[in-house]
């Protein structure tokens, strides 16, 4: 049984903060298909569309019939552990710093034999296991062998915690505590065992229902934060930047207009100031210090979460300028992801459908409850997922987008 992790001791300021190192990241292009599906929290393998043979490791041609028609298809991951080893020596710095390291060889029920990182609660072979894909610290998909049934403290497994961003005992900054989503996030993080939660707020003269009550949570500290003010962001980063393990940027400005429905650029500029330049300011002030803390003990800097929108993928004309600002933020978040990767800090992009709030009043249901969005973000942190599309609308959009993004564009234009 996995030992539950304990609250880490105060950091000794005399000791050097270790430099982050990553597990090996080179992959063939075809193997990146596994990463693409793992980023969504799925486990899929290539399946030959001609003869149905399941392939692993990833291939360019079917090992059975030589067809080149191989499609990534979701798999259950059920299989049998037939062999294991406990590594006490590694050629790679990342693993060398983390030995011993448990590995297994699993015969999947769907056919192939796979090498996996083996969870500590899986019994010795022969044993039934569930194999899933996770993104490792390098952002690349790896396979993990889990116990057949969930056990207590599973997430605290030492190896698994290197691939996830569980908020337990971590210090989190939520940039906006006033919105319903922000409040749900703070409450969810507190319930998930976050150690400290800094909660930003702007426009202090404006009272918001539920906000003052956050103060009663023992983990919470409220801090004034206006991400359109570069100096304010810089000062806050100077104050707490060196301690933030998880940064959740959920500030957003949402107005409902297209091009013709609102003359001038003032509102669009304000949306860009918050949704795009606000992210850029945060990234420039908090990014470097979080990068430096990618290997800072049990609770190192692990994740940066961006609240984007499903409208970032394809413009929703009724909310046209908002969509454009989120598209800009999405593009910048991809840049941030590339820049945080060398430190092993994961950038999680959240693409919700319309949230059930004031600015989506005129959109028909189903709309996403703030608590459901918060739960989805927490699950993404725990499962080490990189992109999430919470809510029925987002799920439908992403399915349409993946099938044919041009068709989706035309559907949205027609309304």
């Amino acid at each position, binding site marked *: 049984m996995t030992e539950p992790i304990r609250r880490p001791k105060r950091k000794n300021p005399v000791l050097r903060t270790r430099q982050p190192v990553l597990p090996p990241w080179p992959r063939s292009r075809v193997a990146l298909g596994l990463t693409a599906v793992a980023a969504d929290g799925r486990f899929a393998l290539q399946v030959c569309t001609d003869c149905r043979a399941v392939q692993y490791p*990833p291939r360019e041609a079917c090992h059975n019939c030589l067809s080149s028609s191989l499609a990534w298809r979701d798999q259950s991951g059920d299989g049998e552990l037939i062999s*294991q080893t406990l590594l006490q020596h590694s*050629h790679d710095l990342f693993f060398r710093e983390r030995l011993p390291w448990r*590995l297994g060889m699993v015969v999947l029920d769907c056919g192939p034999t796979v090498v996996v990182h083996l969870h500590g609660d899986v019994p010795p*072979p022969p044993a039934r296991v569930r194999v899933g894909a996770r993104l490792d610290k390098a952002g690349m998909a790896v396979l993990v062998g889990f116990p057949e049934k969930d056990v207590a403290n599973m997430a605290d497994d030492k190896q698994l915690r290197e691939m996830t961003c569980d908020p337990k005992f971590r210090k989190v900054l939520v940039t906006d505590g006033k919105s319903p989503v922000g409040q749900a996030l703070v409450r969810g993080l507190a319930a998930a065992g976050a150690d400290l939660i800094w909660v930003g707020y702007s426009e202090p003269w404006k009272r918001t229902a539920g906000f003052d009550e956050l103060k009663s949570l023992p983990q919470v500290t409220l801090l004034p934060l206006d991400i359109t003010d570069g100096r304010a962001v810089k000062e806050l980063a100077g104050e707490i930047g060196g301690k933030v393990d998880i940064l959740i940027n959920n500030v957003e400005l949402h107005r409902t207009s297209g091009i013709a429905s609102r003359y001038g650029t003032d509102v669009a500029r304000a949306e860009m100031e918050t949704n795009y330049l606000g992210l850029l300011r945060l990234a420039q002030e908090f990014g470097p210090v979080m990068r430096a803390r990618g290997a800072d003990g049990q609770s190192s800097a692990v994740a940066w979460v961006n609240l984007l929108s499903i409208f970032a993928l394809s413009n929703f004309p009724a909310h046209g300028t908002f969509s454009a600002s989120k598209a800009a933020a999405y593009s910048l978040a991809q840049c941030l992801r590339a820049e945080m990767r060398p430190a092993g800090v994961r950038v999680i992009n959240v693409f919700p459908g319309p949230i059930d709030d004031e600015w989506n009043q005129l959109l028909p249901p189903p709309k996403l409850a703030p608590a459901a969005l918060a739960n989805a973000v927490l699950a993404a942190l725990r499962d080490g997922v990189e992109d999430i599309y919470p809510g029925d609308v987002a799920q439908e959009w992403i399915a349409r987008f993946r099938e044919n993004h041009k068709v989706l564009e035309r559907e949205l234009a027609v309304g």
Partner: protein
Amino acid sequence: MIADTRATYDGVAVAVPVTVPYVRYSIRSAHWFIARALAGLLAESGLAKQDVDGVCVSGFLLFPDTAVGLMQHLGLSPRWLDHIPMGGACGIVALRRAARAVQSGDASIVACLAGDTNHVDSFRQTIASFSQFARDAVYPYGSGGPNASFAFLTDYHMRTRGTRREDFGKLCVAQRANALKYPHALFRKPLSLEEYLAARPIAEPLRLFDCVMPCAGAEGFLVMSAERARRMGVNYVRILGTIERHNAYPDDPIQIRGGWALDRDALYGQAGVGPRDVNVVEVYDDYPVIVAMQLEDLGFCAAGDIGSFIRSRSFTVDGTFPLNTSGGQLSVGQAGAAGGYLGLVECLRQLTGVAADRQVPDATVGLVSGFGMINYDRGLCSGAAVLRRADS
């Protein structure tokens, strides 16, 4: 034994075993070691460089060169050239290719060469980019290299075949005793079973003395017509039979046997001898589990009986089953691709009677086997050859 319709290797001679002394690390390149092996072949045989009209090369660290670039490097102009990137099977495969080249007249004297260097960080770089499958699906999992791969095979073998640590230990201890009589072995101290069992764990169940040590060095031999060998007055060895196989038993979920099991009847059928006729055995030995697998697959004991087989034999040069008589890679060191030649070169010494104080008495028929290339979860290349001393 089944009838074998392949052409024989009649009239082919294998001669002039050469070893370039091994070192743990070297600042020289693979080219340096292979050049020394070629120079050794010429010095031993009395041939001039121009007499060598066929060359067969193996070396992991020749990159970015292949055998082609090496020819200009060494100033050779062969009319037949082969490059065999098959790791631990390269010796057997080189022997097969070279013998056919000589028989067909495409070459008259083939220099078979394998060598590698070992820099302080070169082994890590080799395994990190060993193959596409390894890079995609093995190296990111703990980066244990071959230690981890063979740990899986060993763990499975012990669980399903009932082999014990002591069984593997007996092989390693006997090979060390043999190595003490081999001047080029890098391991110079005796090894006891207690030391073997108590060594530090590397990739459990493997411990230190289960794992081959990377080093630098080279090996070589010549293949020519028997008639030419007699004219030159060199001792030589005849080839009775050979096999090779790649990616055998792909449907086995984990490697518990290799291509030898598939092809051994063809081997002994061509050779006209059986396992009982063999006096000296040199099998590939980067890890003892693979020794056990070859002894089973090559018919020295029934599948599943390897544990009791090991317990009832002794494997030193003066034992009941002389095995890996130079100490094998486990006690000599693994000089990259030269590891695929080590057993073959030692077998040539045994069968030509130049193995000095580790000479197996009356060594007449020898068996050599090779195993190479853990591309993903198993070694893909297997090969074996049965050799006989020329004057018997």
